[in-house]
């Protein structure tokens, strides 16, 4: 059975603008970045010549500075994602199991911090964590410590900042998935001899995995490219690839190398997305 022509026309009416938008805002800029990554740096404006060589990629792959920054970014992002999952899952579960009237209020509290500028919230953490910040001053005033604790300019602060900033992006998709699980399924598990812990691991948890994966991607992907948090809360040993990219672009004015880093990052991040897509297709 083929579609009526008017349905095809109507579909085109909706699909074409969306497609055009994706081309203009995603495909074109990404293509441009990829094209520049094959060019050569010069002293001009803009500071590159079009070319077709892969020397920039060879440079990035061969220099431990870049490779380590990539590895560190993936490591920090992965650890932060795991922590977000560990904190976010119980939160999402508790909200989904709360009385209906209270769920909206609890969700509101999760999203509330996002109403303030991201940058201001990171600065607020600096104020809290600095050697002369609120936490150290309070602990010293209480006589609990003599010397300020090293709370900032280290991996701890970077993880804390990323977990703090991205936690809502873990909680929301998880909540949406758990909330949609039919309560009768849990009752059926109880009916069939499964006490609450067992019912959770055999029914609720497996059915919430797609939400956990969606949440993990929403944390992991931006965290990999994170620039502000490691810059403001991190130290010299927590430089992530976003910071290196910034240096290449604005300080060294080496656009082709910066673009090669950006393209490589996009390639690395495409991996988990494609995996998720395959999982979803298999899952249905």
């Amino acid at each position, binding site marked *: 059975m083929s579609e009526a022509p008017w349905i095809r026309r109507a579909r085109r009416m909706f699909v074409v603008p969306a497609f055009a938008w994706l081309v203009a805002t995603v495909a074109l800029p990404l293509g441009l970045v990829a094209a520049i990554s094959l060019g050569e740096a010069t002293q001009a404006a803009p500071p590159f010549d079009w070319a077709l060589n892969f020397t920039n990629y060879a440079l990035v792959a061969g220099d431990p500075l870049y490779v380590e920054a990539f590895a560190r970014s993936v490591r920090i992002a992965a650890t932060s994602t795991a922590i977000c999952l560990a904190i976010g899952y119980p939160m999402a579960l508790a909200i989904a199991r709360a009385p209906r009237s209270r769920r909206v209020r609890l969700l509101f509290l999760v999203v509330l911090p996002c109403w303030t500028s991201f940058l201001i919230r990171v600065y607020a953490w600096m104020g809290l964590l600095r050697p002369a910040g609120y936490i150290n001053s309070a602990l010293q005033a209480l006589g609990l410590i003599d010397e300020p604790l090293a709370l900032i300019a280290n991996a701890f602060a970077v993880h804390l900042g990323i977990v703090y900033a991205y936690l809502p992006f873990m909680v929301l998709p998880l909540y949406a998935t758990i909330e949609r699980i*039919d309560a*009768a*399924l849990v*009752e*059926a*598990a*109880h*009916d*069939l*001899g*499964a*006490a609450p812990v*067992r019912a959770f691991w*055999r*029914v609720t948890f*497996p*059915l919430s995995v797609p939400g956990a994966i969606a949440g993990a991607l929403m944390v992991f992907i931006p965290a990999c490219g994170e620039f502000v948090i490691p810059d403001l809360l991190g130290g010299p040993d927590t430089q992530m690839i976003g910071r290196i990219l910034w240096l290449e672009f604005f300080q060294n004015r080496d656009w082709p190398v910066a673009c090669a880093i950006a393209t490589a990052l996009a390639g690395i991040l495409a991996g988990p997305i494609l995996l998720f897509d395959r999982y979803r297709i298999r899952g249905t």
Partner: protein
Amino acid sequence: MIRIERLAKRFGGVLAVDGVDLEIAQGEIFCLLGPSGCGKTTLLRCIGGFEVPDEGRILLDGQDVTGLAPWLRPVNTVFQSYALFPHLSVAGNIAFGLETLAMSKADREARVAEMIALVRLDGLAARRPSQLSGGQRQRVAIARALARHPKVLLLDEPLSALDAKLREETRLELVELQARLGISFVFVTHDQDEAMAISDRIGVMQGGRIVQVGAPAEIYDRPATRFVAEFVGRINMFERGGAWIAVRPERVALGAGPHSGIVRECAFLGERRLIFIDSPLGRMTASVAGSDGAPENGATVAFGWPADAERALPQ
């Protein structure tokens, strides 16, 4: 088998179950029948352990299970929407309840195979619920609930999601299944035809109370209240000398009798034909064999019924 004593359950200020006393025997099909909101599902959920009653007791085989968690009760439920686990196969769904029992893997597999054969789902063991028809899903739900060999099977409107034809076939299969297993089935429905067709006994519920318990024929022929008379089957009801008199339409004979009225409409139902008559007693319905001819609309007809067809009911 099941003994329910003065059971009451409140939701907020509303009494959903209001002082129910009930005994269900070993090996019978007992049906809780009533309109939506009458408390029949809440009562079933109390037996299953999903609701904790505010008052009263539930005894199973003499054991007080009132406060016992559902996973510790020797009863299993066929849920209204079946509640099959979407991430597990048919075999996985059926095996779920066996995982917490002390059984060897081989015994478990044998039990699953036995259940699959019992509900005639052979060849579908590896399918996911989403790949099954409505009737097949219902069979999985029954097999899953029976796999643990419960003493009582609870069924919450198990046929309501099936289409009319399949529903009638499935009714018969449920009765056969129950006869083979010999365990008690407690069935909740709002469909009086269904209740009449499969039950050994029916408990009619209204406003959280059981208003009458009896065999289907008893409920039909000797309804205890006006509500039961009107809820179970069609009935003619009129007032005479301060009492309500009920007469079933199939007992009304046309052509002769002490009453007369004007034919308003005839409805042909196949086997039966319903004839609606306006008379001094009110709107009366007569049910005659479908093969009998229909009187013309507007015609005046005489009608009557044998004396034993009348039943006087309290208000």
